[in-house]
């Protein structure tokens, strides 16, 4: 019996470091949240993260990608606390499927730009796309990325789409379109104003806003996910509210968004 007890004691002692590690892990999980972020918000998000950390001490882990992809992932149980989409439809469908706390609220409106490293006359508007010098035009996949959807809409509305369809190349999301433009693999591309204004790409090539009558202004909505509600309710709520605060608004403005 005595022997058994000392065995148990030994086991417990051996387990102690593991308990400590678990505690540290649990503590870390407690003081951070994980956010799925539409690629166009990427650069603004880095500043939002810093600002949020400064005022609350809470770490924000971010994953950047296409809103549609995140939407699918969240429906399949991806552990994101908050979803910052590039439109209203994807977070709205999450809400309808029961994967979001409430209906999405727009945190900013995004603007579409044409961006090129080459010497095209962007003042011509979209008709520059039918120039003979333009061989390849990049846009985000219209099926999954809202900026791509609006870009396709703008080309259709201006009657150019059928003429230039064969020049189109699709990126997984807005960041891949930026890579295609920056590596010179396409001549011109559609992008978000929030990307071309970011420090990382500032001064590379030139850009011009797409005529805003040609597409619907891109209302970008955010929701607290079911996962966040169940695992991280107070931190998720704090971060969500922060998105609509004055300091977040100042950052959104600096990145070319229009405020709700």
């Amino acid at each position: 019996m005595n022997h058994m007890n000392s065995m148990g004691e030994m086991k417990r002692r051996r387990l102690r470091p593991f308990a400590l590690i678990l505690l540290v892990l649990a503590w870390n999980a407690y003081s951070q949240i994980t956010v799925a972020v539409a690629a166009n918000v990427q650069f603004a998000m880095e500043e939002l993260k810093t600002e949020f950390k400064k005022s609350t001490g809470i770490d924000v882990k971010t994953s950047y990608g296409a809103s549609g992809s995140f939407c699918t992932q969240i429906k399949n149980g991806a552990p994101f606390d908050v979803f910052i989409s590039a439109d209203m439809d994807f977070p709205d469908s999450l809400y309808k499927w029961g994967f979001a706390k409430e209906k999405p609220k727009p945190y900013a409106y995004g603007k579409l730009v044409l961006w090129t490293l080459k010497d095209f006359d962007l003042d011509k508007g979209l008709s520059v796309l039918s120039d003979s010098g333009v061989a390849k035009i990049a846009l985000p996949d219209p099926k999954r990325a809202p900026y791509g959807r609006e870009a396709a809409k703008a080309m259709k509305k201006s009657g150019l789409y059928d003429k230039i369809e064969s020049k189109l190349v699709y990126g997984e999301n807005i960041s891949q379109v930026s890579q295609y433009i920056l590596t010179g693999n396409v001549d011109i591309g559609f992008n978000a104003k929030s990307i071309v204004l970011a420090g990382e790409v500032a001064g590379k090539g030139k850009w011009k806003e797409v005529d805003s009558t040609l597409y619907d202004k891109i209302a970008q909505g955010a929701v607290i996910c079911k996962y966040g509600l169940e695992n991280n309710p107070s931190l998720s709520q704090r971060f969500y509210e922060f998105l609509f605060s004055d300091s977040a608004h100042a950052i959104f403005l600096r990145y070319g968004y229009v405020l709700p």
Partner: protein
Amino acid sequence: MHSIDFGPLWLTLRIALISTAILFCICLPLAFKLTQSRPWLRYPMQAMANLPLVLPPTVLGFYLLLLFSPERLPGAWVKAVFHVTLAFSQPGLVVASIIFSLPFMINPMISGFESLPRVLTEEATMDGATPWQIMAHVLIPNMRPALMAGIVLTFCHTLGEFGVALMVGGKIPGKTVLASMAVYDEVESLHYGAAHVYSGILCVLALCCLLTIFLLNRKGHRAL
């Protein structure tokens, strides 16, 4: 159910066939040369040829995106000479597949050449055969199982290409959407029915290829 476009499957088969054929022609002399080379040349070359096996596809995709750019060499040269840009085109997908599947063709060939006794080449040379004659009449007939393994493995592996194609393909419908990418797209769009059809066909195809390899290996052993 969401309608199914078989284009990506045909394109995948076409790219796989073309890449396999080109790889066969490149790798046969290369593998032979390597088995004849001195170790200081042979092993570094062999290591280089096997890089695509261990590197993440994203690394290949990143470099290819830079190399394909018509703004600088070698992409600019390819554009000037062949009038094609490799990014977002089928020739580009073939180039990507060739690099991506190189180890799968060259490795079986190298072991094939190594398994042949040296005497074969030496005797043929003494009989006055040219290197090409030796290759065609002596070596190739004697290493058929290795060659078949190389061909089938390369073909299979090219069917499974995804990461590189996603980075340099540009997803142009009907032009650069491979079956693997179609599966990804359909899953992302919640069209599970279509994803099942593509995936099912790929599973059957891959299974048949692998079965072929195992049957060939068995026959090869018998022949030896």
